[in-house]
């Protein structure tokens, strides 16, 4: 019998301070998440300096809660893991400094993990991953199609050329007068509206796997501004449904294009936008109509946003490979695969 591995993991790349204790990469003993949403709502988006300040306020409280809830002591731990990028440099640094300090103080191996890889591996809490698998990573910072050949072996097949999909939701949400973050409310409105505006589906004809949302965003904003100028009232739900319809067409088109050249048994959808109900339903129905023998895996809602549990999952793979870091680890704000 293989002995259990316990990893204390840290995530602070944006506006969530999170600390988790993960067993064997797939069991959550604790996953504390302190969110700063209320603070950044004052400014309509994440303000990096404010985020960094909040992380310092929260960090030791989160460690304490994570250790307490998991009912473990430092002697029980096998390693400490931390997100070192991508993300906001000032925010990343707080998790990194705290993780390095705990590793140093208790003489534990340190693992530096990629935030994007963490998002993908949040699926390990749902089911056992079978290689190769495909991941559609959709969040406020990223829109990527990633082919995962073997544990921790990533190949980016497609990326966004401009805005991330979650960012586009926030921007059109602002135009609709929806508070940041807008994704959930736009998704709700889309559910009750009709796709009547026929917004452009960028790059769906192109034979590549890259995404673009800025054209869609501009078309949306122009439509609303034009209506404002002529004092015409547009149906918000129909606007939301039309926006979301275009987004889903783009995501679905590129995802199934990728699956044609890279067939897999599992499609993992991860990141904050993976919480989108419209996306969940649409992907499921597309797989059915295409009669694909493929599992569609969505992490539970709590693991779609930023959290340290997912870092514990990818860190387990690094732990098994003895991929350890030393105390000189620094933030890498633009880290990719």
């Amino acid at each position, binding site marked *: 019998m293989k002995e259990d591995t316990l990893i204390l993991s840290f995530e602070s790349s944006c506006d969530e*301070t999170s600390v988790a204790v993960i067993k064997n990469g797939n069991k959550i003993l604790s996953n*504390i*998440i*302190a*969110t*700063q949403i*209320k*603070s950044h709502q*004052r*400014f309509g988006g994440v*303000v990096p*300096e*404010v985020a*960094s*300040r*909040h992380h*310092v*306020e*929260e*960090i*030791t*409280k989160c*460690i*304490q*809660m994570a250790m307490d809830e998991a009912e473990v002591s*430092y002697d029980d731990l096998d390693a400490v893991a931390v997100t070192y990028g991508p993300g906001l*440099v*000032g925010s990343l*640094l*707080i998790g*990194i*400094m*705290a993780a*390095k*300090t*705990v590793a*140093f*103080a*208790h003489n534990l191996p340190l693992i530096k993990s990629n935030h994007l890889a963490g998002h993908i591996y949040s699926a390990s809490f749902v089911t056992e991953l079978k290689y190769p698998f495909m991941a559609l990573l959709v969040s406020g910072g990223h829109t990527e199609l990633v082919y995962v050949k073997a544990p921790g072996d990533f190949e980016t097949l497609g990326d966004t050329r401009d805005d991330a999909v979650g960012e586009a939701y926030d921007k059109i949400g602002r135009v609709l007068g929806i508070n940041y973050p807008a994704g959930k409310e736009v998704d709700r409105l889309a559910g009750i509206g009709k796709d009547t505006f026929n917004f452009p589906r960028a790059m769906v004809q192109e034979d590549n796997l890259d995404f673009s949302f800025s054209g869609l965003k501009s078309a949306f904003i122009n439509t609303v501004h034009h209506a404002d100028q002529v004092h015409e009232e547009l149906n918000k739900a129909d606007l939301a449904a039309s926006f979301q319809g275009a987004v889903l067409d783009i995501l679905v088109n590129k995802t199934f294009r990728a699956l044609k050249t890279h067939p897999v048994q599992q499609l993992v959808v991860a990141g904050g936008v993976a919480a989108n109900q419209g996306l969940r339903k649409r992907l499921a129905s597309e797989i059915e109509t295409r009669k694909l023998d493929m599992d569609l895996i969505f992490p539970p809602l*709590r693991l779609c946003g930023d959290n340290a549990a997912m870092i514990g999952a990818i860190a387990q793979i690094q732990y098994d490979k003895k991929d350890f870091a*030393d*105390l*000189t*680890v*620094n*933030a890498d704000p633009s880290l990719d695969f």
Partner: protein
Amino acid sequence: MKILAFDTSNKPLTVAVVEDGKVLAHMESTEIKTHSVSILPDIQESLKTANLSVNDIDLIAVADGPGSYTGVRIAVTVAKTLAFTLNKPLVGVSSLRVLAANGTDGKLAVPVIDARNDNAFAGAYILKSNEVVNVIADQHISMDKLFELLANYDENNIQFVNVSEHLAELIQNKMPNAEIILTKDSLPNAAKLANLAKDEQPVKDIDAFVPTYLRLTQAEHDWMEKGHKEDGNISYVEEI
């Protein structure tokens, strides 16, 4: 009592291990190091030089600002996490007080950290027989305002510490008789920080320990200008 002290609130990085006034290890970097990269290896090396394990330390002392926001956060995060995880007492000392300790006995030391646009983080301290007594509170202040506050003091006895070349020009114009110690000649010294810390009360609530920024962020400042008020009851961060 064995004290581990460090300061990353300005460009130099300094770490020291001091036992009952005796300096067991002292590191001071003049070249620009990346604090986030160097701080833990430097702490490790200092402890090694002092022939101690981190568990042997009785007190952790840190310069807690004002200074570079990111710089101060690095040292404060390491200090509070270390104190928290090893259950050790923690003392925060003003970064300006640490700089003031570089002054001369008998002088009024005025540490200034250039905050651009003729502003500074500054305070004033009287130095006498190893004590560094605060007389003008640390604050973010325009240089003109600082000169006003210092008008009551004997200019010949004033010693500006940690002066940037730009601030040196302003000072020479306004207070030509005051002494100026330039930034390069007044590196923060963690051994002196340890000595300042030994007489202070340890932090009561380590979780609540944060840097002394002395300035709101621009976003919060603008938000308040728009008429918003902090009512003190809103918790902006919540566990979910």
